[in-house]
């Protein structure tokens, strides 16, 4: 990673930010756009969280209490899409917008106007997404989207007009993601400070380079798939309609060719955050830089050719399922390598446990647990038993919450003092960490057992024998959901004031971003930094 001896004066800012609404509507400044991404993601996190709490309220007891089965499944669909496309991806894009130019010594993103467009497509897409949930409640609105986020035909061909809103929302979200990815790749390739080689970039930048390529390669395939779905619904084609000679399984392949790499799209930026945090609070250089870069590229390549482990039960040949099983298990090698590199970075380090580091250690433990249940699910005969059970729900929440969401929280706590110029309240942040992590485990750990005992997912009712564990899980979920109000409070409190943060906020922090003032000037790196060799 590059460090800099700087001939960069902090106060050569040419002018301050524009004032009023136009600052945000027409912004081409990477910091403002990064902030908008993060605020948008926070709003979506609360909407997606509200739908999750309704789901858990329904599952608190057996029988139907609050939700009709179709509405329950509509909420399941809505929760997944809001969290994946509305919260996690935009939050990661917010970190990328804020940090990549600061880390590589660039004055801004390479295509600032396109950056503005990438963001402002999102609210329109979110509106479409929310409408897809709301429309069935109006007269003539048709049936609810009860397909889950996978949108499998033939069910998705039979859903009412809300599915069309959802398809357009996915198109818009895809356009936004691809434009943002193009911008990130161009920025990384063309805008690095003179002398900064690719193999000298911070790992966070590398994770985003790999993520952006993944997005460009797989999002258009999803766009193709949902476009075919739209054509089947309205223009008389039969891509997925067996009665017309089509094949519904084709959609599953198209969807999971996007859907599986999407897991890495969500996780890799958070793992990049860990690569910044762990060396800082271990006061040691990152262990195995080159192997981390290699592991990420391996994850990208292998992650794109193992998609069908999500559909073992559709009746593929023995050769095909064997290939997908072996490929899936092989992925655990580069993923495990990343985890071991982070552990080796901590080994014999002078560690301290500020909130970002607490999250980092928690992530390694909980994500590894999710990875182990992933290996169980990768094994074909075992998966035949586990599939479509609550065990799968527990597994992917152990992967995605620590692997993606907690990593983003860690990043926010790590860089919030740099962004705002104020230290956050460490005591409150630690309380948030413990409540968040404990309630997360109370929510999802019991779901492994009820899943193994046979409770199916995506069904609003369940057998009496699952009552106790579901009640525990729901109580955990309510605490988990409400704990995010504390996060909101801490962030607002930090933005509004607090102890002045140093330029180098953390004693062990290294990298170009720490050479700038806290908060950084509105236009930073207008003079390229001179890198120390």
């Amino acid at each position: 990673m590059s460090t800099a001896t700087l001939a960069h004066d902090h106060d050569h800012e040419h002018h301050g930010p524009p004032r009023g609404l136009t600052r945000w509507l027409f912004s081409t400044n990477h910091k403002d756009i990064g902030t908008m991404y993060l605020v948008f993601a926070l709003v979506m996190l609360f909407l997606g969280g509200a739908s999750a709490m309704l789901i858990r309220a329904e599952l608190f007891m057996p029988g139907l209490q609050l939700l009709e089965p179709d509405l329950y499944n509509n909420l399941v669909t809505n929760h997944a899409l809001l969290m994946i496309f509305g919260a996690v991806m935009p939050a990661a894009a917010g970190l990328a917008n804020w940090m990549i130019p600061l880390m590589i010594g660039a004055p801004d993103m390479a295509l600032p106007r396109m950056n503005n467009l990438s963001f402002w497509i999102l609210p329109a897409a979110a509106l479409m997404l929310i409408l897809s949930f709301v429309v069935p409640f109006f007269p003539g609105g048709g049936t609810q989207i009860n397909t889950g986020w996978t949108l499998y035909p033939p069910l998705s061909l039979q859903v009412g007009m809300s599915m069309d809103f959802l398809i357009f929302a996915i198109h818009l979200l895809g356009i936004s993601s691809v434009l943002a990815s193009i911008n990130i790749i161009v920025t990384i390739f063309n805008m690095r400070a003179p002398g900064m080689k690719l193999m000298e970039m911070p790992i966070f930048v590398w994770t985003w380079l790999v993520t952006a390529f993944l997005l460009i390669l797989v999002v258009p395939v999803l766009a193709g798939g949902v476009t075919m779905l739209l054509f089947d619904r309205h223009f008389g084609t039969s891509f997925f309609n067996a009665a017309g000679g089509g094949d519904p399984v084709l959609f599953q392949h198209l969807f999971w060719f996007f859907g599986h790499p999407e897991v890495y799209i969500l996780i890799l930026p958070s793992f990049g955050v860990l690569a910044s945090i762990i060396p800082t609070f271990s006061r040691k250089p990152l262990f195995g830089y080159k192997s981390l870069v290699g592991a990420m590229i391996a994850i990208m390549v292998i992650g794109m050719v193992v998609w069908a482990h999500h559909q073992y039960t559709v009746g593929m040949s023995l050769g095909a399922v064997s290939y997908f099983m072996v490929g899936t298990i092989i992925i655990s090698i580069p993923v495990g390598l990343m985890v071991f590199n982070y552990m080796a970075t901590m080994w014999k380090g002078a560690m301290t446990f500020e909130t970002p580091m607490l999250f980092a250690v928690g992530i390694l433990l909980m994500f590894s647990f999710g990875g182990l249940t992933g290996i169980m699910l990768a094994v074909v005969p075992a998966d035949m038993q586990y599939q479509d059970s609550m065990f799968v729900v527990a597994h992917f929440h152990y992967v995605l919450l620590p692997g993606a969401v907690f990593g983003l929280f860690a990043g926010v706590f790590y860089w919030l003092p740099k962004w705002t110029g104020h230290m956050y309240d460490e005591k409150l942040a630690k309380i948030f960490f413990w409540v968040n992590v404990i309630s997360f485990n109370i929510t999802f750990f019991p779901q492994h057992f009820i899943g193994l005992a046979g409770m199916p997912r995506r069904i609003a009712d369940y057998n009496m024998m699952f009552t106790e564990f579901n009640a525990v899980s729901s109580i955990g979920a309510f605490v988990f959901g409400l704990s995010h109000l504390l996060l909101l409070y801490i962030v607002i409190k930090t933005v509004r004031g607090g102890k002045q943060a140093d330029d180098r906020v953390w004693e062990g922090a290294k990298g170009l971003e720490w050479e700038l003032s806290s908060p950084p000037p509105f236009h930073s790196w207008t003079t390229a930094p001179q890198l120390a060799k």
Partner: protein
Amino acid sequence: MTMTETMTPEQRRKNVLLAWILAGLALFMLLSSVPFWKGLVHMLALSGQ
């Protein structure tokens, strides 16, 4: 002064060129997905018989 105003024409040309190449890659993935996946699924189905 915005970033777009301070960028040299050569830098801007390089950025836009790379952006178009990447957009072309995305378009290729979109357009090739339909025949490619139809063929692959057909092949997988046949191999299972």
